[in-house]
């Protein structure tokens, strides 16, 4: 029990102290930490420990979809390294550690890559609509404004209940990018005046659809109706093995925070934190693997997990 408390603290420490780090990367780093501190015991024990840690991290109050995709990727990473072929646990651990560091380093490079791909799609004088706060959207806007010297205007939805849109606006102000904070309910009102929609994602599912902060689906519907391109920016470690067909299909632990679920209150009375946007509403996905159409996402996942 002592140990699991530590896991959660370690994870939450990263999430709180390093706001630049995505929840998926924080989860992977936590699992790496477990791997390093794990004594020279059996592999069976190690995998049990990792499984427990994953469960533990899912109780944190942050994007659970990202945690899930990060942990799934890490599990896959362990099987793919070939470390399990080693006869003794010490060698096996050494290989994993070494590979793990390369792996983490590659994860750091993903966001600048996406920003480079996405920036050319922003043209001078355009108006852009974004939802809530996304690190990768912010970086792409920064790349377009500072490196490519484009001038554009950003509309940001306030994004209740946590008003994360306001934080996004503060960041844009720091970068001297002109922006307007709008009401969530004004999405339809501004849609006719914007040229494109840029959103991040907490998870990209097998169909090529996305799971993101509640309100994203509404925005996608509005954009489709008004024939505006709807672009998603997401790192490939957010690809998650889920195939939701509709909103009801999303697992409860993704929709509600763990504290809400634990409190035992009637979930019908609670607000969902995320929604699912089907692939038909997404124009393109910008990932570190390149610019993908939604149908290319399943290809990537099959390559990895088959």
């Amino acid at each position: 029990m002592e140990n699991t408390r530590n896991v959660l603290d370690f994870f939450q420490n990263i999430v709180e102290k390093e706001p630049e780090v995505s929840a998926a990367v924080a989860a992977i780093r936590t699992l790496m930490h477990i791997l390093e501190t794990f004594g020279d015991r059996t592999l069976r024990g190690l995998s049990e420990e990792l499984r427990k840690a994953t469960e533990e991290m899912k109780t944190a109050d942050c994007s659970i979809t990202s945690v899930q995709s990060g942990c799934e990727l890490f599990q896959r990473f362990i099987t793919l390294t070939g470390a399990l072929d080693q006869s003794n646990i010490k060698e096996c651990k050494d290989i994993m550690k070494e590979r793990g560091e390369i792996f983490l380093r590659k994860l750091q490079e993903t966001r600048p890559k996406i920003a480079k791909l996405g920036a050319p799609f922003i043209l001078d004088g355009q108006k852009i609509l974004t939802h809530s706060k996304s690190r990768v959207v912010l970086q792409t806007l920064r790349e377009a404004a500072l490196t490519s010297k484009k001038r554009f205007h950003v509309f940001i939805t306030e994004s209740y209940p946590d008003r994360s849109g306001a934080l996004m606006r503060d960041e844009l102000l720091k970068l001297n990018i002109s922006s307007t904070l709008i009401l969530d309910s004004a999405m339809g009102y501004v849609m006719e005046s914007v040229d494109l929609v840029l959103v991040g994602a907490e998870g990209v599912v097998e169909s090529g659809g996305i799971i993101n902060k509640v309100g994203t689906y509404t925005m996608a519907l509005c954009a489709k109706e008004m024939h505006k391109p709807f672009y998603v920016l997401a790192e490939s470690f957010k690809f998650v093995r889920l195939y939701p067909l509709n909103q009801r299909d999303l697992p409860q632990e993704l929709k509600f925070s763990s504290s809400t679920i634990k409190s035992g209150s009637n979930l019908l009375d609670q607000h969902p934190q995320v929604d699912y946007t089907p692939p038909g509403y997404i124009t393109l996905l910008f990932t570190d693997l390149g610019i993908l159409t939604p149908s290319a996402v399943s290809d990537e996942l099959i390559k990895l997990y088959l």
Partner: protein
Amino acid sequence: MPSLESEIDGIIETFTNNLKQRKFKGSRDLALNSVQLWKKIIGQMKWQNARELMDAIKQIGKDLAETSPSETVIGNMTRRMLKIVRDEYAMLQKGKQEDSDLQESLQKILTADEVDFDYIENIPLLKPAIMEHIGEFLTELESSEIDISVQALEHIHANEIIMTIGYSKTVFAFLKTAAKDRAFQVIVAECAPFYHGHKLAADLAEARISATLIPDSAIFAMMARVNKVIIGTHSVMANGGLKAVCGTHTLALAAKHYSVPFVVCAPMFKLCPEYVCSLDQDGFNQFASPEEVLSNDEGMLVSRVNVYNPIFDYVPPELVTLFISNTGGNAPSYIYRLLSELYHPLDVLL
């Protein structure tokens, strides 16, 4: 005696001059000529290893592309050459590489296998291997029109009414092949102000295919009775959208309205790995002289109005039903997959 370098420069200059004077007839002719140019360059140039060769190809390719930025075929052919060099190098280097391993993928991030080749080994067999591969590619280019038209009978049925726009050699060959076995009717939109449709209608009539010529403004009115729209295109963009002759978007929207299948004949060399954002008309379109729209004879009027004469239309992928390429039929959502097989991801940005 001219040095080797100046000789190569000479070949390139002849090519760019021809390009500027628009001496190439259609994009297949351009593709063939540019591959033949590459064959000569690669054959005559001195290079120690694949890396040197690839750098040279990239440099020359860039210059060629800048001569005529809207001809995507030139860039495509440069990328194909780079891909051929990469493939042959990988094949000779222990034959260990498969296509899929070259792709950037989640798997690669995980396994951390550095498959990055440095391409610096000097392999004597490389040059003949590359030349042979280019030769095969040329044959593929030459037969692409026939390969597309043999599929005609699968798509055109007896007594159907087909609509098309402007003049496309591929479409003409396609219709002609189908006409050998089936009787059908073709409606041709004339495609003002260049009126390439007139030529198609005349050619069809000569081939004894029943043809009806209509003005572009009648496309919507005629669409209700059409069974299928079959068109050619200038290039296919990475998202499955089209860069096609101006008027195609109108045609596509009319087809969508009446739920008429919209079929595009496009050989593989027209697949372009670039994305276009439909709002970026400056980087995408080309404008012809307004003379055909408003003649200079109308002196007074010309000075008072703005006249635009764009050549291309962007057609979004959701309006396209099917692509027919020399390798078979594909849906627009599958284009990304074909592209990843055709070009190496590192070569997309030249």
